[in-house]
């Protein structure tokens, strides 16, 4: 009988067991990033910037040089590295609290300067690490530990859409929102990541892939229910797709 | 000396000290401090001294701006251009960025013949230590101020280390630049402590340091 490898762990990740809760999509996203870096042969020349959030330990998981950044500051740290080591591939891995709240200035200005870096943005509509508080991306009505009656617009405004926001920043180059709730979408998400690292390799500027992600633990749902909740609630508010592709019409693209 | 002298140049070239010296030595009516570059050591710090000498100090739109870095220049700064009875010296902030403030007064300047626009040069400032750098600076100053430079002031010094040879070296380099640009050296300023009987280019003046404290 012919054997077929159906699953092989990616060399893009170390053999440290991932710290994420079972069914949390942070794990899938890690695997995709690891695979893309490995397949593109970039691991040897990459620096990954871990942010503060559930992915704080990601510097232990990505099998490349890593640096751990303060909450929200990963794009500034990436800027520092990329400017002095322009040949290295540099990416940040950030949650929605990290990127859309405390690190809003750093992400907007990294895009604004057109930093040639890639951002992996994991939007789970909540502060996972600190125990499920409201994030700027939390949906209206969504209950969190700091919006116990459900997020209400009068008090907290409307959820921020970061891909749409960054698309208005003239310096950004490639922005796409993806999801990892089923194999088809996972394949699509991987393509998006490949594109983003391509953009960086071709020195075309700032790229970000926003992942719709889940937090079963803090959402208080089974992993399966949380995937369905993301499809039914998050994706309608955060539609998937390419929000900006400034590489089109470019000879190098 | 023309009715109005405007001093420009690199920062730290000695414009403010020279402005105060000229105002006192020539009994001018006003000193206009338009320095929007430096936060300290501006001619406005010498308010008491100037006023004691009957010289009006025109500076900012905010009272006692000696401690501020707000660039608010006073509209009164245009008075000498309009009132031909006034003899005045203008002290601009350093570099082309300081000189661009003159654009605010362009429409008031009626008679350019009454104005000397002088570039203060100290060749011991690394940014103006060669004729070609000085020439380039003059071009930049003219571009942002929209006023033609009419001459140079040689203020080459190393403060307490200054001696005759430094003034001479300054004159040599400055003459090279002045020659290329076909401009005169209008004044040479000589540090108070340098005892010399030599004659240097232009009007020779003593430089008394009013802004720098003894311990600086």
């Amino acid at each position: 009988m012919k054997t077929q490898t159906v699953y092989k762990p990616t060399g893009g990740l170390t053999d440290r067991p991932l710290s994420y809760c079972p069914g949390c999509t942070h794990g899938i996203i890690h695997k995709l990033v690891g695979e893309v870096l490995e397949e593109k042969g970039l691991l040897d020349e990459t620096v990954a910037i871990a942010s503060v959030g559930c992915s704080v330990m990601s510097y232990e998981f990505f099998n490349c040089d890593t640096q751990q950044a303060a909450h929200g500051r990963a794009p500034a740290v990436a800027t520092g590295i990329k400017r002095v080591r322009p040949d290295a591939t540099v990416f940040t891995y950030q949650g929605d609290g990290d990127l859309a709240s405390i690190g809003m200035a750093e992400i907007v200005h990294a895009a604004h300067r057109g930093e040639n870096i890639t951002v992996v943005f994991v939007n789970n509509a909540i502060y996972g690490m600190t125990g499920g508080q409201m994030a700027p991306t939390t949906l209206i009505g969504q209950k969190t530990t700091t919006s116990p009656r459900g997020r209400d617009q009068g008090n907290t405004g409307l959820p921020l859409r970061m891909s749409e926001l960054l698309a208005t920043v003239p310096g950004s180059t490639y922005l796409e929102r993806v999801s990892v709730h089923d194999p088809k979408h996972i394949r699509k998400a991987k393509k998006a990541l490949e594109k983003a690292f391509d953009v960086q390799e071709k020195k075309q500027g700032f790229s970000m892939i926003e992942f719709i992600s889940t937090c079963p633990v803090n959402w208080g749902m089974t992993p399966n229910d949380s995937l369905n909740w993301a499809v039914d609630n998050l994706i309608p508010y955060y539609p998937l797709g390419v929000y900006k592709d400034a590489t089109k019409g470019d000879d190098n693209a | 000396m023309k009715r109005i002298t405007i001093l420009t140049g690199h920062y730290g070239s000695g414009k403010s000290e020279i402005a105060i010296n000229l105002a006192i030595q020539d009994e001018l009516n006003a000193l206009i401090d338009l320095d929007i570059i430096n936060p300290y050591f501006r001619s406005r710090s010498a308010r008491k001294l100037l006023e004691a000498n009957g010289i009006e100090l025109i500076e900012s739109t905010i009272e006692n701006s000696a401690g501020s870095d707000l660039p608010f220049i006073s509209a009164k700064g245009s008075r000498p251009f309009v009132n031909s009875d006034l003899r005045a010296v203008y002290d601009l902030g350093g570099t082309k960025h300081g000189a661009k403030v003159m654009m605010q007064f362009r429409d008031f300047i009626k008679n350019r013949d009454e104005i000397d626009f002088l570039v203060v040069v100290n060749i011991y400032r690394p940014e103006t230590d060669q004729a070609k750098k000085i020439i380039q600076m003059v071009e930049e100053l003219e571009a942002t101020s929209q006023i033609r430079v009419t001459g140079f002031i040689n203020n080459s010094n190393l403060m307490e280390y200054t001696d005759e040879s430094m003034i001479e070296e300054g004159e040599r380099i400055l003459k090279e630049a002045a020659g290329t640009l076909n401009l005169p050296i209008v004044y040479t300023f000589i540090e108070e402590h340098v005892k010399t009987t030599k004659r240097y280019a232009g009007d020779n003046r003593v430089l008394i340091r009013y802004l720098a404290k003894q311990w600086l």
Partner: protein
Amino acid sequence: MAKVLMKGNEAMALAAIKGGCDAFFGYPITPQNEIPEYLSYHMQEHGRVFVQAESEVAAINMVYGAAGAGARVLTSSSSPGIALKQEGISYIVGSELPAVIINVMRGGPGLGGIQPSQGDYNQVTRGGGNGDYHLLAFAPETLQETVDIVKQSFDLADYYRNPVMIAVDGLIGQMMEPVDIDKEVEQKTLEEKTWASDGTSGKRGRVNKIVSLHLDPYDLEKHNLKLKAKYDEMVEKEQRYEMIDTDDAEIVIVAYGSMARIARSAVKELRNEGVKVGIIRPITIWPFPEKAFDELPESVHTLLTVEMSLGQMLQDVKIVNQGRYQLEFYGRAGGVVPEASEIMDQVRKHLKGAK
């Protein structure tokens, strides 16, 4: 090379280039603007990096990134901006990275003013960031000394893998003084930065991690003890100070930076009057030069601390003094720069038999 006349900020910027600074990240604030302005023009000429960041917070985190990638990095700011950088400084220390930070101090608290001050003494020597750490902190007095220290600081930062702060008050940033920018300074023998996380793991054959997170308290304690050992080494080796006219002094002024310049003037005049007065001038404010106080002669009865702040360094003098001498204090704040005559009056007031 011969001396040139430079403005303090400009001289520090040029000294950084001479000291091998690869990259600068900063944000405008008076009275240090000439540093980024100068570097924005000149770093490019040397093929080096200049970035105006969106804030001091971003700037220090860019420093953190670039230092982690093995570069020699500089940032500069003034007091309120340094306050914003404290988070990043703590991360840089925690990750054991070298960096040089210039603080051209102005009056505070809050937006304060733009005139010269030494009100950041605590911010510089105690730090505003979290955790058990210190910066090697210099407070030079003349532009020549400042330039020499800026050049050396890149070596010192690399040697200790710890940030170095150069704290000057606005006067030193803004004043003009002749300097020899190429004067030789002592250099350290440095190891290669094999720890840098710079995207060359392929060549290196292993990955590097730059991290300040240690979730196991025993592990974190061990890390803290390792840092402590470096601080002990600094206390032992890096104390710098100058003893001025102390040999037969009865009163000794303790003053640093511009305040020491003013004190020098006062001492010169007082000595002409026959008053036996000298100065201890700390050149490092962390480590505080305790050794200087052990060198004082028997004749001393009083230490007069003078600051352009209201008794911040005085705390260190108290710690070091341990009851040895009578302690007196004179300070001006908010950007007011005292005259030499004020210090002379203070000295006269505290002479034995005065009043």
